[in-house]
């Protein structure tokens, strides 16, 4: 849903995206303890599998982005996890391009990091509000911000794309609602069943 193919964006936008991704990745990899890699990998495989599930909405169906949820659960480790998922999707499924990988990655990663900053600590607070609402907000915000970033990376590339970029934002609305509900349910469930899942980012 957030995969821009090759050939749409202009060089400055693609270079900017690649640089931003490299910067985020270098911070994230420094913070990622080698011993945690298997754990992050298993979780990111779970996210990858979940993003393949098509969920019915009205007449059509959508695939989840899950970047809000990944940010909330994995923290900075969401950066390499999302990049790996995007590489696999580009190479084996044809979703998204190769040269625009940097842009596609930062469009998913920045919202994930924002969700991590906003929600990760609140989710760990046992006294705080119910998990469904926090998850609902994280899921919805992840999609909303990604939608904005995708639309603006297209609009910046070429002013002729602007009308399309505006229409594009509306196509994210159904996904935003579904993703918010699904993420809310998932986090509410995890908080009751295995709260340790939400304590990962600190380690």
């Amino acid at each position, binding site marked *: *849903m957030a995969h821009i193919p090759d*050939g749409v964006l202009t060089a400055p936008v693609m270079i900017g995206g690649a640089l931003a991704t490299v910067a985020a990745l270098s911070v994230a990899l420094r913070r990622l303890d*080698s011993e945690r890699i298997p754990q992050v990998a*298993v979780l990111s495989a779970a996210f990858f599998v979940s993003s393949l599930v098509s969920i019915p909405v009205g007449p059509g169906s959508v695939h989840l982005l899950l970047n809000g*949820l990944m940010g909330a659960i994995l923290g900075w480790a969401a950066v390499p996890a999302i990049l790996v998922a995007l590489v696999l999707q580009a190479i*084996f499924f*044809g979703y998204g391009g190769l040269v625009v990988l940097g842009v596609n990655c930062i469009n998913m990663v920045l919202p994930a990091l924002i969700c991590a900053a906003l929600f990760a600590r609140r989710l760990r607070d046992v006294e705080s509000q119910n998990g469904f609402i926090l998850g609902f907000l994280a899921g919805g915000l992840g999609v909303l911000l990604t939608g904005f970033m995708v639309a603006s990376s297209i609009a910046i590339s070429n002013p002729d794309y602007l009308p399309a970029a505006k229409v594009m934002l509306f196509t994210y609305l159904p996904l935003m609602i579904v993703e918010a509900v699904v993420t809310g349910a*998932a986090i509410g469930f995890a908080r009751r069943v295995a709260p340790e899942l939400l304590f990962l980012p600190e380690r």
Partner: protein
Amino acid sequence: MSMELLVVSGRPGNWLSLRDPRLRILIALGFALTIVSLRQVPLLLLALSFSVALVLSTGLSPSRIFRRLLVLEGFMLVLLLLLPFSVPGEAWFRLGPMTATWEGFQQAIVILLRANAIVFALLALVGTLEPVVLGHALSRLGVPDKLAHLFLFTVRYLGLLHDEYRRLHKAMLTRGFVARGNLHTWRSLGWLLGMLLVRSLERSQRIVAAMKCRGFNGRFYLLDGQHWRWADSLYALITVTALSVLLLLDGMT
């Protein structure tokens, strides 16, 4: 069986499988970088037919290729459909208050050709590699160790978690779950996702414990025999020449 999620096996022993995986990745990257800067439709058609020929030569079955054709997601379709109306230029046809232009139509075609040419080349050159071989090649090309390890571990567990997902999903279906576009469906799928995550966490704790028992200290040794041969250098040379010619031809007009 568990890897079926990713593997796109071409005919075994096709000519591409003799080449070094690093060469295949580099060629795909060079090809993609060249194609995104081309502007002439005839050259793009040439590039597209080249990548289609490449896909066919790897012996992928046509049905699999069609399933992996450039996936035009909703928002890209919006862009391509609106381009003829938003680019100023010579009028092509009118639709109500809007005028479609030839220039806009041509831009949309250029985007479609570029995207498809790259997807096909990527599918043939890199998509036919075993994911594990791809991970090793990426590591040999200088991708940071931690990232390469994460890639390899993720690929390793994808199949297992896909099976786990199918098990949980089947359990829901047995209890009469039908996916519809309503709140109940979305919440139930959220619980399914939550359960999948909880089980993955437990699985990962067992994996880490088992690896530590075997002396895992954060280093993951990659053992494989990827050898760069002189023929690989030859292919690299031919590719660089062909791509430079394309770029030159594109710049001439």
